[in-house]
């Protein structure tokens, strides 16, 4: 359970990192950030990259900043950074609630937010957050910088539209207005396991009616996404048990559930119904 031999590159600046990545990416080079997914599969020798571009020593990539409209999360920001709210907006609390569900404490100390997105595991909590809130992802390479909206980012199970020489340098999440309500729920057989289904829901209440509902589902399809059918069932309704159940049923109908070693499609569909309802119940508790 030791990785196959590889060349370890340790750039100190972003320019140097991008140059190295451009050079080694065509020769089976990969970016190493927290390594919490890449290193275990290397230890199993399921992945044998010839080069690793280790960005942990690159100055400036561990920044968390806000311009008043978005929260910007740098490539080396760890999951544990969100154990306490990072910003005085409902977004800060939301990230804290979600962070607790990511694997286990030691993993949260090393793994990174951007790394989770670049890895694109269907059950990743941060991928669900990015999809539900409408993140913008900033990819950098020697060719320049480009912004990718989250709806154009995921391409399949553990697959994204990042080019091989691109580093996911930053993710921007929109700040949530102060009246935003949210709830998050995930189901896994044991605490810390990959979610078999997860849901994040946000909305605002105006005169007792839900508006601007975002209902995201993760762990159930190839990648997390918002479920318009569930959002339609909520918008214009009160925050009631009936509306929550209607949204959960609509989502359960709308999704195309994954089948894997853990369970079949029908069970997962049922889980989606449950996690959405529980996320919405949490939003009013």
């Amino acid at each position: 359970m030791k990785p196959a031999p590889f060349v370890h590159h340790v750039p100190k600046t972003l320019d140097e990192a991008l140059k190295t990545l451009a050079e080694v990416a065509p020769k089976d080079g990969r970016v190493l950030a927290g390594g919490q997914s890449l290193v275990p599969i290397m230890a199993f020798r399921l992945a044998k990259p010839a080069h690793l571009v280790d960005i942990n020593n690159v100055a400036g990539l561990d920044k968390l900043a806000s311009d008043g409209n978005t929260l910007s999360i740098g490539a080396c920001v760890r999951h544990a950074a969100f154990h306490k709210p990072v910003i005085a907006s409902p977004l800060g609390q939301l990230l804290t609630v979600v962070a607790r569900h990511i694997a286990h404490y030691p993993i949260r100390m090393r793994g990174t937010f951007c790394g989770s997105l670049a890895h694109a595991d269907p059950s990743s909590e941060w991928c669900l957050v990015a999809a539900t809130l409408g993140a913008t992802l900033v990819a950098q390479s020697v060719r320049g910088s480009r912004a990718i909206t989250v709806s154009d980012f995921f391409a399949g199970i553990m697959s994204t539209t990042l080019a091989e020489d691109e580093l996911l340098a930053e993710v921007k999440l929109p700040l949530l207005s102060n009246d935003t309500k949210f709830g998050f729920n995930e189901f896994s057989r044991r605490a810390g396991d990959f979610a078999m289904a997860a849901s994040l829901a946000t909305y605002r209440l105006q005169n007792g009616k839900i508006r601007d509902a975002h209902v995201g589902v993760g762990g159930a399809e190839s990648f997390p996404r918002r479920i318009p059918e569930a959002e339609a069932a909520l918008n214009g309704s009160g925050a009631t048990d009936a509306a929550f159940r209607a949204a959960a049923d609509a989502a359960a109908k709308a999704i195309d559930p994954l089948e894997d070693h853990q369970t079949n499609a029908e069970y997962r569909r049922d889980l989606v119904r449950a996690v959405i309802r529980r996320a919405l119940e949490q939003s009013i508790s």
Partner: protein
Amino acid sequence: MSGHGTRGSGMTWVGRAIRRLEDPALITGQGRFTADLPAAHWVRFVRSPVAAGKLAGIRVPAGAMVITAADLDGVKKILPMLHKFSYKPVGQAPLADGVVRFTGELVAAVVAPTAAEAEDIAERVELSINETAAVSDARTALKSDAPQIHPEAPGNVILEGKVKTPDFDATWTAADKIVTMEARSRRQNATPMEARGAHAAYDLATKRVTLTCTTQMPHLTRTAISDVLGFPESDLRVIAPDVGGGFGQKMSLASEYVVLVWLARKLKSSLSWIEDRRENLIAGFHSRDQYITLEGAFDKNARLLALKADIVANVGAYSCFPTTCGVEPLMAMAEMPGPYDVQQYQCLARGVLTNTCTMAPYRGVSRPVITFTIERLMDKAARAFGIDPIDIRRRNLIDRFPYKSAMGLEYDEATYKETLEMAVKAIDVPSFRKRQSEARAKGRYLGIGLATFSERTGYGSPAFAARGMEITPGWETVIVSVDPSGFVEARIGSSPHGQGLHTTLAQIIADALGIVP
């Protein structure tokens, strides 16, 4: 340590909370484990990637040192023995000689200056295996057309335990209700925190090998390895240093340890093999892959009159040394009735060979499975009679002692019923039932599971010796001596592996001799 428990004082060291004698070293990082030893060479094993096949060839990278079965000339097979229950002796070559029978079986050993180099080389060893049909499920292995794992065990049955009490049939036919419970226990791995590992060092002066290994049975490891390799026991010293958990997985002989000692003698040097977690999960002995069909015959008052069990234990591809693969099916057969009073019993317990990792004892040995099965049988019976699951246990738990089971096991005084009533009171069952029905109305399921458990002990006593295992006599030798300084030295046979045996035995000896542990 304050206070002196001495003979006649009425105070004892046993039963008192004292600081563990083991802990100062362990919690300050001074523990000594097998992997801490330096070695001149490191070993990595090449394992079969398939469950069944014939070895057609092994291609070794140029310049690499790789040992295969062909090199182990004169090395015997590991051959666990049992002289009852129609046991079929099945041998295991330390490195597969021509046939592989489970995924993870050892095929070759790579020797290199470091563990990392050995692993890199092992990956480049090319095995040519002609795959043959494999069977992994025990019930499938019992079918007439199933692949045969070993010619010595036709039909893949390696062991068959049978019992039937004299009045079984008459009691069975007179019963009011027959209730059936089918249980399936999936394969488990003991996963000790420290996986397996060994360090073998050859001494040029004495020509002896010292094997330091993480084991629960240093003495039997010595006996077995010297027998398999064909040299006197006195040429091998086995040391069990600090052991990071065993749970049974380390009380069976690892083929890896045999190969390591062979290599130390061959190279006249020192070598280490430290198992990684993946190897441990795949090939570090498994357990509890069983099918149990249990039927209970009850009278009209829901009293259990007779019990019928069919136990199919998947024992994997080989038998484990020294206990043999009989441990799981035979333990299940002997203790199936558990804490319930039933004098008529019929059981068929089979050990079935399959193309899976070899089974070995794992803490509890079958008891989690049989306890679950009989308790579920009681729950099903309670439902069939329309009575409370607590009530059916009140009617059937053993309450007179000493009690002799249908299998002839003697039960000392126990408090099964009293303990059940304490639990019922502590839970406040009537109010729980109310909460349960309220929650159910809201779509939430609450429940109570009841289980009573009795464990046979008496290891190192005539009760254990009665099992008749070869090589495992079942008795224990302890030498306690007082040296001229007045200090007491105890030499014991039991090997500690994390339970605090040092402290426990010091307490016992302190009470017996009137000294401070």
